[in-house]
């Protein structure tokens, strides 16, 4: 059943006529063409689909689009502001904290939510809050370093 859903997407108000039970991931990727958010497992186990809703990281593959009504959503495409990369994006580049890059948007956004609630996390705090985001290429150590750099 279609309904109108109003929310802020990457800083801009948006109004969508959409079946509210559809998952945010697919609405972002298809209806809105924002393909930076990735499908990895479909069961909230890998974190490739992580986006920010009202400053919290959510797994968009299991998050009905209805739930974003009146909220603020940030995807990887919206992280850089005014042509300036976010410090996390810069740090991921500088530390080579990625290989194939498929998990990268989810990693960056999960780290973003961590830094929002804890701007200067310890190494242990970074590891524990990133632990449910999977990377198969093995960029983990560099991801931790990148997050540390971005938090300094």
């Amino acid at each position, binding site marked *: 059943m279609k309904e109108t859903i109003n929310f802020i997407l990457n800083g801009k108000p948006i109004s969508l006529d959409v079946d509210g039970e559809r998952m945010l991931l697919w609405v972002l990727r298809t209806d809105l063409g924002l393909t930076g958010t*990735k499908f990895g497992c479909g069961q909230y186990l890998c974190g490739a689909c992580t986006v920010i809703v009202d400053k919290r990281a959510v797994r968009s593959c299991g998050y009905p689009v209805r739930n974003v009504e009146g909220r603020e959503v940030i995807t990887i495409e919206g992280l850089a502001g005014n042509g300036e990369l976010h410090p996390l994006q810069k740090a991921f580049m500088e530390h080579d904290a*990625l290989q*194939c*890059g*498929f998990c990268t948007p989810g990693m960056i956004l999960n780290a973003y939510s961590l830094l929002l609630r804890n701007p200067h996390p310890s190494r242990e705090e970074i590891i524990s809050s990133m632990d449910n985001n999977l990377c198969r290429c093995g*960029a983990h150590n560099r991801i931790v370093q990148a997050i540390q750099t971005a938090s300094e």
Partner: protein
Amino acid sequence: MNNDEYKDVELNHLTSQFTLNRREFVKLLGGGIVIFFTIGDSSVLLAQRQQRGYPADFNAYLRIGEDGRVACFTGKIEMGQGVITSLAQMAAEELNVSLGSVDMVMGDTELCPWDMGTFGSRTTPVFGPVLRAAAAEAKAVLIELATEHLQIPKSRLQAEDGVVFDKNQRENQVTYAQLAKGKIIERRMDEKPALKAKSEFTVIGKPVLRRDALEKVTGEAKFTGDIRLPGMLYARILRPPAHGASLKSVDVSEAEIIEGIQVVRENDFIAVLHEYPDEAEKALEKINAQFDIPENNVNDKTIFEHLLNVAPEGNVADRGGSIEEGEKSASFIFEETYLNSYVAHAPIETHTAVVQIEGDKATVWASTQTPFSVQSSIARSLGIPSENVRVITPYVGGGFGGKTQNRQAEEAARLAKLTGKPVQVAWSRAEEFFYDTFRPAAVVKIRSGITDAGKISFWDYCVFFAGERESQQFYDIPHHVTMVSGDWGRSTTGSHPFSTGAWRAPAVNTNTFARESQIDIMASKAGIDPLEFRLKHLSDDRMRKLLDAAAEKFGWTPSKAPSGRGFGIACAKYLGTYIATMAEVDVNEQNGNVQVKRVVCAQDMGIAINPEGAKIQIEGCITMGLGYALTEEMHFKGGEILDLNFDSYKLPRFSWLPEIETVLVETGDVPPQGGGEPAIVNMGGVIANAIFDATGVRLYQLPMTPERVIEGVRRK
């Protein structure tokens, strides 16, 4: 080089003697100056002739555009291993242009010369020299052209940063772009071109950051699943619950009532398609299907016995001396069996393909390591000539060997044909596990002996189903034999209940785990420090030097194992690259948990093109290797795959991470070797040996799960 060694051909003089003539081809590449390059050995051209459409008598690896940018065309693909950067470095180095002015065009069958595929750590050692030679050739031609343009002898000319200039008068110069405008330079390489010596390198060997990083941190990088064409449908396909199952009955009526759904059926191939992937998924769930599942009692516990029962006769891979003689001089004989389970590739990007058919032409976007095989298989399945199929490879979200198989692309092609619309097939995680070509379960049996003096007297090795690669031991052992039965990719019928295939460093993870465990067992019995024991049996200086480098970085101090410290060691060769690894572990004997605290890996891969990239690959190998060493194994019952997502199939996580230190060792002028796989091969052995050193418990089966550790402790 003389003028008559190359032909300077006007475009309008060309005849259309090829499927695609040169004029068309140059246009297709974007115009400008194309450096045609032919390798003396024509095996590549022969293969290319099969792939019709591309000109038949040359390869074009480089184009210099009128803007001065250099485009490098390669059939290799980028899946995280970083060749998008290291190949550009090689081209920039030999052409004397800045790295930033090189653009990489990768994995496009229409624009790129034929390539077998991206696997086996072959890009750098095999394709690299070809690319460097082409670039060196191109530079030589450009300088030759400059002598004519500037009327200055070659000896006075120098090329730098895309400009040829007079050494005596620098303002007397001409750019590459100005030089070759409107021309085609053709040259057959008869002699080896002079490549730069290591001492002349300004780009190779210098650490540079990834060229694809910006796109990947902003979400702009396009992977296959990100392709959405007008009118495209997303497909979900009905799958059997087990390999070998056959469809008994099916009811699709519930699926058909979903608005906008298209149900396609061709025999047992049933798919639902929709303009939204999630709607297609919903429709798939509404299909009611019954399958017949054939009786098959083999499971992940009984598989090893089964494999030994059905193993084909072995081949001798290596032999020296006489085992009988060796046995006579042995004072201790060790007879051990090593096992490893099926392991999944599990890239985070599942197999994905988009196919668009227009008339008798098809365009394919695929997450693949082998775009040219996709081209020919799609052509076959659509019944059209290869030249009518263009495969484009966007960024690939991890491969590890698994994306050399491309069933998903054939499915997308079949559905595009059946529906008459562009179709995307993106496998779910369950499909990815179900149709994966696993690293095979394998058994290694080793008999070996040592003398009173602690010297290995014989080595009798037999590997079942892992494969031959690097099964030949490299220690100084007077009497030895290596037998190989079965291989990762060519299994006898009735062996594995599902597909197996190449998994990062195929065969070598298994062979190294078994060999390095056995070596440690003997060292311990002999009461000799495991490093010293290895050095005692090694005359290869490259390996000795590498072990010393690892030991120095690690701070290895001699002790016989088990020392209680939890230190492990393993060394290996992988297709020309040498690797020595040391690790420190903590073992909790109560709950069986193994925490790897520290790993030092020394690697000799010849000249490292991008040392930073090489280190990243080593780190990736070590991290990925923790998985097959500690948790990763596929559970199954007959043809039914029981692990279908990351809840039960456990990949390495942040909290597992050891401190990782890498040392790159260059021995003399060994040319660049591969680096995407080697460092993973030691991970099973080094952790098994470290667990033994910590606890005195020897584990013979990978992965070394908490249950197996607890069982080992109990056995002790």
